[in-house]
């Protein structure tokens, strides 16, 4: 040792005075680096067929016309578009949002609409105003990973309720709420994605919708309906929103899938009693949503045939779904099952017994294919035998190649599992007997 006196230091320590990480709030404890996120960094390379992300396909957007709109917006209304605005959103866009929601049977007052930076912000704000640490939120199992992240950020506990091929199962919802009630627990709300569910791909049957609302009303549980995919069905059928059946439902909507995700424009439609609290929460979060993107969306809705554009999007997604389903049928090894979505972005795949899709992901990345492993869609460690495949972004040819690679990965993983025996892990349901499209496996918390 040449230097006997050295000052002990810590990483990230700019001076002795402050180690920022030691001052983080307890609610950020889960916000850590992870192997899974590290692997997704590789998925961004073009060599990798990513079936993981839910990026909308924007190829069909009329970009030259939008470029003209942007230029004209700045030239004519730049003083307003580039200025602060109302915390609740522009009145014009809130009126247009009501027209969009009317397609799904919702009659709404623009005064009850709060425009947000994507519906993710709406979800974050709703959780913020409803949930104290330890409060319970009921959600489908599986559920949207971004919602689970919001709930975790506010230290809410999530209790999952299973779905079948017709969506959330009312009897299981009642059982869950009853069991919670006997423990003196009233969940703050039910979070549900009734249409073309992310990640499960299923749609709540119309006849179940009133029943779900009724059960929640009985137990005094609010309902938060998240509906980003509702207009992206493949059969032409539009399902009635839960909000169209009950004015107390908190409804979350988004232009991310029906127009442009990069604009980050979403909204919440809330009962008047909730609205003011939500607007104040929004104001403290961002002061106001961006005027520029709101006004651009307004121009798009006013000057373009947005209904036809949504049909064009849906047709592109249907073509990609078909490519994925064909590839799954052709390539996957025995013992795999999946749902057949009628809209939206996702296929939910159950793999053979013994395979842990999270543990398998490095093998997949090595083989240049990526997916979202199932455990990320549960708050309680379930989902190890499931994975989500997104067909929204890659071309049909890339989807086929991605599934072919995934099939080879599964074969290799099964080979290793056969060597060492089936590791003991929490799984969902029995091993399926044969290949093919099926319903999501039952899940009981």
């Amino acid at each position, binding site marked *: 040792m040449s230097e006997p006196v050295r000052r002990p230091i810590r990483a*990230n320590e700019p001076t002795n005075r402050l180690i920022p990480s030691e001052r*983080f709030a307890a609610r950020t404890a889960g916000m850590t680096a992870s192997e899974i996120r590290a692997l997704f960094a*590789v998925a961004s390379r073009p060599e990798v067929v990513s079936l993981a992300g839910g990026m909308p396909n924007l190829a069909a957007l009329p970009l030259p016309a939008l470029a003209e709109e942007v230029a004209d917006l700045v030239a004519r209304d730049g003083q307003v578009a580039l200025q602060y605005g109302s915390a609740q959103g522009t009145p014009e866009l809130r009126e247009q949002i009501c027209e969009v929601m009317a397609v799904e049977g919702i009659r709404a007052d623009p005064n009850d609409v709060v425009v947000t930076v994507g519906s993710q912000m709406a979800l974050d704000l709703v959780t913020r105003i409803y949930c104290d640490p330890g409060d319970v939120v009921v959600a489908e199992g599986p559920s949207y990973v971004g919602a689970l992240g919001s709930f975790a950020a506010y230290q809410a506990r999530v209790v999952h309720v299973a779905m079948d091929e017709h969506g959330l199962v009312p009897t299981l919802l009642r059982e869950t709420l009853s069991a919670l009630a006997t423990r003196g627990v009233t969940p703050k709300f039910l979070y549900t994605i009734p249409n073309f569910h992310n990640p499960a791909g299923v749609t709540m049957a119309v006849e179940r919708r009133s029943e779900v609302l009724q059960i929640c009303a009985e137990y005094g549980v609010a309902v938060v309906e998240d509906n980003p995919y509702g207009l992206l069905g493949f059969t032409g059928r539009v399902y009635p929103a839960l909000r169209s059946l009950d004015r107390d439902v908190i409804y979350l909507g988004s232009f991310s899938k029906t127009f442009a995700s990069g604009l980050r424009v979403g909204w919440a439609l809330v009962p008047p009693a909730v609205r003011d609290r939500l607007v104040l929460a929004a104001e403290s979060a961002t002061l106001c949503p961006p005027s520029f993107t709101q006004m651009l969306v307004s121009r798009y809705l006013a000057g373009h045939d947005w209904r036809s554009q949504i049909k064009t999007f849906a047709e592109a997604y249907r073509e990609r779904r078909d490519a994925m389903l064909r590839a799954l049928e052709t390539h996957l090894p025995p013992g795999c099952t999946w749902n057949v979505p009628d809209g939206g972005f996702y296929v939910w795949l159950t793999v053979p017994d013994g395979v842990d899709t999270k*543990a398998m992901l490095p093998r997949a990345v090595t083989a240049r294919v990526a997916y979202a492993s199932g455990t990320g869609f549960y708050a309680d460690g379930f989902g190890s035998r499931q994975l989500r495949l997104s067909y929204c972004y890659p071309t049909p040819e890339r989807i086929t190649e991605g599934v072919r690679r995934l099939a080879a990965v599964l074969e290799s993983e099964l*080979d290793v599992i056969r060597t060492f*025996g089936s590791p003991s892990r929490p799984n969902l349901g029995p091993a399926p007997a044969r290949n093919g499209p099926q319903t999501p496996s039952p899940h009981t918390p």
Partner: protein
Amino acid sequence: MGQNAAVTERTVAVLAGGLSHEREVSLRSGRRLAAALRETGTSVREWDVDAALVERLRTDPPDAVAIALHGGEGENGSVQAVLELLGVPFVGTPAPACRRAWDKPTAKAELARAGLCTPDWVALPHTTFRALGAQAVLDAMVDRLGLPLMLKPDQGGSALGAHLVTDRSELPAAMVGCLAYADTVLVERFVAGTEVAIAVVHDGAEPRALPPVEIEAVGGSYDYSARYTPGAATFTCPARLEPSVLKALEEAALAAHQLLGLRDVSRTDAIVDASGQVQILEVNVSPGLTETSLLPIAARTVGMELGELYAALVERAVSRETTAH
């Protein structure tokens, strides 16, 4: 260091990213290294390793390349071999020595042959377990090495795929998890003790060891999350060990660096067991340079900033190539 007139005129390409499992870490290392070099006045380009790289090196040749790649081609000698092929000076270990150090069983065998302590181990491919029967082979491993065991992919870093096995029943899942990263698994006797990392830099006449950095993972395990989440591990430099142990650590790292033929910079990870014995776990040819990485901490402890260190190594690389021609 200090010859700033020469240093400030250099153009350096920092290679980061690639397609390995450690791409994210590499990008973070690359960003930090690039920023640090710019602070010295060096002109820096940040390049990913992709199909455009060779053309870039030909048409827009830098004075030297600094490799901030982790895992795969960046550490197994492949990128180094291409740079040697193109005659591009680079900071770091030549290709053949990279290959030796990258393969953990090969490196451990060389260290052990030279009398350096490394935890007892066995490395086997999946095909061997399949052919001979996993249960029998695993039983033999446990009989020989005992429990707990550390399982690691035979190649790779950042603790990706590493599993601590404390009970025999955990072995199958750990093997499956480990083999998702590589075809061969390194099974090592677990050594409890003080975890340390010792960087070796060759920025002067002779390679020298920097003060050992002691690592304490807040959650107990220095896994991927603990490595790259600020605050998830604490680092003390120099390690709070007896002077004689610190000296032994530095000597071991220097010996490993020279024995494996490493050049310019390396990092040796080690455990000091309860008896004070230094056990080398592995040697890295491309140490992490992120905000939570160990080499920059050790360098700062001796009053050296990362950019300053790498600017000096760049000068060595350039003069090495000039001398060679």
